[in-house]
């Protein structure tokens, strides 16, 4: 334990962890919407600043925490999205208070939980210890469970419950996998802490028992895959997105899935480092394709707009898993890019959808229409977001999909065909619904929305920029990470 505390000398790394934790404690006590919302934003901003510092001075890897090329990508991304989402949630929650969907008590709870979630995710990302990472991800899951149920409507509670049960089983499986990894490592590294430390594990992985690693990866894939939302483990995801507060949907899609994916990648590296172990690629590719195609079809019959975009998250997680499964510098690069773009775009979409649902007073697609007429900014924002998520240029996802498909087709044509098929099916569904929501005769109330458009358009601007011009430093950075991923 003291080693754990010892790794907390003052550093950006410590900041990334301590600030949310402290903020959570503080927000749990403070009353009042105005101050807490601002404080929430402030804390998120501070965390972001620390994360950016991490880019420049990397602390040495401790026994529990460390920062390397791989996870710093995730940290910066998630802190950034966390920040913008907190800005969005400030205006969103304000409206929820007005219409009385949330009471101040729950607001306090909400903010505290928000920061706790940040803490848990940053901990999971920076953890240098597979046990610690497991604990952190479990914590993140439980927090989100509580936030999903926060409206305490029947549906919300059912969604939370479903999430909770499936999540717990996933956690259990992941733990078993973790134990197996330890078992594999122990003969080589010896008992005790070192046998769970990433840096050590990677270094010595080649000597581990390959079969044990294989079994372990099966459990980890299923355990963390549940969090990533890969089919057929996805069941919790759509409802959790649909019934929770929209900022949480944004955080879930934009961050939590990535964190779980990060865990998977780590273990993939571990297996890759062992020559005798089975390649984890095929498994990831299979589940990726399965998720992609399944989600693509599921998109068609959705009546709830948030649930629909939740399924699109499953679809894109499938694509990302596919890309990393294919492997190789090009596909890995594409996977990283796609993950980043998806986080930004999807959260932007949820920002738009949140306000839309507020002004229309419903999440039913059938009850909204002609948004570009009644609410031009929101409407066109949504159009832009959907066009982006559907993989249209000149937006970032187009580039990543271009790389994934073309690099795959050159190597395994037979894999590229179902990939393209899934992409096309999903595209058709998204545009179909977009037609319904954004165009046609205006339906539903036309009261002007009091919304903060800044986060949405900030994200979309970034996505647009990435689609046209990726700054060389970022490219170099991603490429180095892609190399790490092998």
């Amino acid at each position, binding site marked *: 334990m003291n080693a754990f505390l010892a790794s907390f000398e003052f550093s950006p790394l410590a900041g990334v962890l301590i600030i949310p934790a402290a903020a959570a404690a503080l927000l749990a006590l403070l009353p009042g919407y105005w101050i807490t919302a601002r404080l929430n934003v402030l804390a998120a901003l501070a965390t972001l600043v620390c994360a950016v510092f991490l880019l420049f001075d990397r602390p040495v890897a401790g026994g529990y925490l460390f920062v390397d090329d791989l996870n710093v990508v995730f940290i910066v991304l998630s802190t950034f999205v966390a920040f913008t989402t907190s800005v969005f949630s400030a205006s969103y929650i304000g409206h929820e208070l007005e219409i009385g969907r949330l009471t101040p008590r729950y607001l306090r709870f909400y903010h505290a939980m928000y920061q706790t979630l940040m803490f848990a995710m940053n901990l999971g990302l920076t953890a240098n*210890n597979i*046990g*610690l990472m*497991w*604990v952190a991800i*479990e914590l993140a899951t*439980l927090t989100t469970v509580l936030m999903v149920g926060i409206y*305490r*409507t*029947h549906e919300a*509670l*059912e969604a939370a*419950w*479903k999430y*909770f*049960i499936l999540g*717990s*089983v996933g*956690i*259990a499986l992941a*733990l*078993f996998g973790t*134990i*197996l990894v*330890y*078992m594999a490592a*122990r*003969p080589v590294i010896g*008992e*005790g*802490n070192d*046998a*769970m430390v990433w840096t050590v594990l990677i270094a010595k992985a080649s000597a581990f*028992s390959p*079969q*044990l690693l*294989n*079994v372990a990866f099966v459990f980890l894939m299923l355990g963390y895959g549940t969090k990533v939302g890969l089919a057929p483990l996805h069941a919790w995801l759509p409802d959790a997105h649909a019934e929770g507060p929209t900022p949480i949907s944004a955080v879930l899609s934009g961050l939590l899935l990535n964190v779980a994916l990060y865990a998977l990648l780590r273990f993939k590296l571990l297996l890759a480092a062992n020559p005798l172990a089975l390649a984890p690629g095929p498994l990831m590719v299979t589940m990726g394709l399965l998720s992609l195609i399944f989600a693509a079809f599921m998109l068609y019959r959705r009546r709830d707009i948030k649930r629909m975009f939740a399924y699109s998250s499953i679809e894109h997680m499938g694509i990302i898993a596919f890309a990393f499964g294919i492997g190789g510098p090009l596909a890995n690069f594409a996977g990283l890019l796609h993950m980043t773009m998806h986080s930004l775009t999807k959260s932007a979409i949820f920002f738009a959808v949140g306000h839309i649902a507020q002004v229309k007073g419903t999440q039913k697609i059938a009850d909204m229409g002609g948004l570009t007429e009644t609410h031009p900014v929101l409407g066109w924002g949504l159009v832009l977001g959907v066009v982006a998520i559907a993989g249209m240029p000149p937006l970032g996802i187009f580039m990543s999909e271009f790389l994934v498909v073309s690099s795959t087709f050159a190597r395994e044509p037979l894999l590229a065909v179902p990939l393209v098929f899934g992409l096309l099916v999903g595209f058709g569904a998204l545009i179909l619904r977009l037609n319904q929501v954004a165009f046609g005769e205006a339906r539903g109330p036309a009261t002007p929305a009091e919304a903060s458009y800044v986060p949405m358009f900030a994200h979309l601007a970034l996505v647009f920029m990435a689609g046209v011009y990726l700054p060389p430093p970022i490219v170099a950075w991603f490429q180095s990470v892609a190399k790490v991923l092998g």
Partner: protein
Amino acid sequence: MGNSSIDIAHMLAGGMVLVSFLLLYQDRMFALLNIFAIHAMVLSASVAWQAHVQGAPHLYVPAAIALVLKGIIIPVALHRVVVRLGIHRTIETVVGIGPTMLLGMGLVALSMVVMLKAAAEADPLAREDLAFALSVVLLGLLMMVTRRNAVSQIVGFMSLENGLILAATAARGMPLVVEISVAFSVLVAFIVIGVFLFRIRERFDSVDLQALDEFRGERR
């Protein structure tokens, strides 16, 4: 430590698998709860034995947790839940008991083969324990899947989690075992409370809300 230690550990772990089968076999609610209590006690015994064998005193904590929380408190609590909510005393099954048992056999065989092949070069004690633990986990899952009642599903989950604790303790010198077992206990507590709060009578899937409201004492 001679063979005896291994034998005892082996026996205890195998005992858990046996008890898991008993759990699968049960179709009466209270009997199920009692058997689960036994499951937990066997676990705590096995963990304690591991602590003794490995000479790792901190392992006594999980043993104690298992004994107190899962061996006594939770079964009693569930007893009261069953009584309070007037849940049927018999357990509806999706698949009949017999087929379930057969499935269980198959799972045990599977886990044996996988584990013994996989952990070929691990030390025999750990290998056996892992194999048993995996069987327990799978049987727990099987139980969750083939039983309709909420309570029996919870029991299934808890037995699964017992299997995890078993594995964790069997992994000699694994850090964070205590924390993990604590965390899991919290999880289980959550679930039980959830069942209690949401008045989940029969199914896992439907939560009963106005009950919740009067429980919270505020109307929306």
